[in-house]
């Protein structure tokens, strides 16, 4: 059995206890909702995109330490990036979580920073959905924002 310390790394627990960018954004920011039907977790990502750049991002909802910390770290990482950079970043993350579509090019040079700590989740396959919930919801919000 893989060790629990591979899952609950300190940086993950830190973002769980003290989530960054928690809250909501008023329109014209868009939002998207995601949920994990297995555990009942739900998450809302608010996205303020202007001139092709993510000006601000916030999240709300309930979830386990993995979904909450993953989303918190994600919001920190994407703020200020262009939409294209965010999309490449999400692909890089999903590739790490072994979920990227093989047909999609992944830029291995992208540095995930603290988010690398989530790599241990791959050893606990049922939790991968927790780690990716916020990211998939972000993709939907991006689509909404760039309509």
């Amino acid at each position, binding site marked *: 059995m893989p060790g629990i310390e591979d899952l609950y790394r300190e940086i993950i627990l830190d973002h769980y206890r003290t989530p960054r960018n928690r809250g909501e954004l008023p329109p014209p920011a868009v939002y998207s909702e995601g949920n994990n039907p297995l*555990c009942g977790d739900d998450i809302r990502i608010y996205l303020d995109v202007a001139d092709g750049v993510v000006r601000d991002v916030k999240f709300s909802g309930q*979830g*386990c*330490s993995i979904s909450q910390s993953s989303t918190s770290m994600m919001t920190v990482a994407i703020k200020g990036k262009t939409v294209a950079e965010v999309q490449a970043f999400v692909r890089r993350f999903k590739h790490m979580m072994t979920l990227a579509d093989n047909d999609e090019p992944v830029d291995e040079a992208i540095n995930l920073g603290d988010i690398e700590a989530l790599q241990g989740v791959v050893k606990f396959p049922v939790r991968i959905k*927790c780690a990716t919930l916020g990211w998939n919801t972000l993709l939907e919000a991006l689509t909404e924002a760039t309509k």
Partner: protein
Amino acid sequence: MVGTNTAFDSAVIRRDFPVLAQQIDGKPLVYLDSANTSQKPNLVIDTMAKFMRESYAPINRSAYTLAANATEFYESARNSVAKFINANNSREIVFTKNATEALNLIAFSWGRANLQRGDVVLLTHMEHHANIVPWQMLQQERGIELRWVPLTSDFQLDLSSLPTLLMSAKAFSFTSMSNVLGTINPVEKLCGAAHAAGAIAIVDACQSVPHSPTDVQAWGADFAMFSSHKMCGPSGLGVLWGREALLEAMPPFLGGGNMISEVRLDGFKCAELPAKFEAGTPAIAEVVGLGAAVEFLNGVGMANIRQHEIEMSSYVLEMLTSRFGDDITIHGPRNPELRGATFSFAFRGIHPHDLSQVLDQSNVCVRAGHHCAKPLMKIIGANATARASFYLYNTTADADALADALDSASDIF
């Protein structure tokens, strides 16, 4: 062994379940997820293996001896199940894919034949999705009205306005025991109230049939359903019981082989009960396995199992409260006589998903999530809970292991 139940020793019974004998990383397996699905005793495993090695054949359709014998095994299991719940006769026992299919069968066969726009079906706030969604589908299709019996603050059904809720209702469909709260409902009383209002009574008995004696005639119910896999039998098999006259009057649910007596280019005639509701090749070996599960449970004694679970409930409630006080919130009745040994809980603000992950490090298996009862979760104000459920093979040592593992979860979060 707990208490004074001398006819029964869960530590001995446990040895009949090979899964529970294993150790992982040198620690025993603590299986507390039987409300989800139960483990299987040797009698079930061996009976199924022997049947498949020596006697497997199609049923009801071939004249050779092997097939005739297989049919006899299959029908003998049906008789055992009928006796187990005190059905009037074995024609009232229909085998389905699972209890969910049985509930769908009632909603769509009985429901389509008997419910028109505006007709009322009464449900409760503590139902499993399987006793909600089929009725909502019928609501979309037919425009029936769904009403709900609410809960009291101590997790019982609030029956104060039951007569009003039942007014002009055609059916009252409710669980005999909540899979989240553990609450045991007064089935006889609810069936009586339904009949007094001119409604039929449908009992989702999944959580009670494996754990206590069942007498569908004493209940006064019209339909009841339960699953094989929660009562030590194999998965892929559910049981529908219905009053013969009602089943006779209903149209078939699934069409195909076995459920017909005649098919012509211009139509078909249904087979007799229960074949009318068993279209296609059924789960033959699984039905034989369920027969063995019934034999096993009868050997232990259902009243003994119920007594054991009352004692387990009493122990678990006291032990968890004395060890953790206000750090643990148990969503369910405190009186062991009014509940089964299924405990949904919140612990020190730790998300149930994280909790179950950490408990797994101690080989403690609990369910985390919404338990297929999302409306109820919303009512009790929880997105998700952890749930520990005990069965005949669980001991106080399992309960202690749960508490020890909960302590270790506090260390991480």
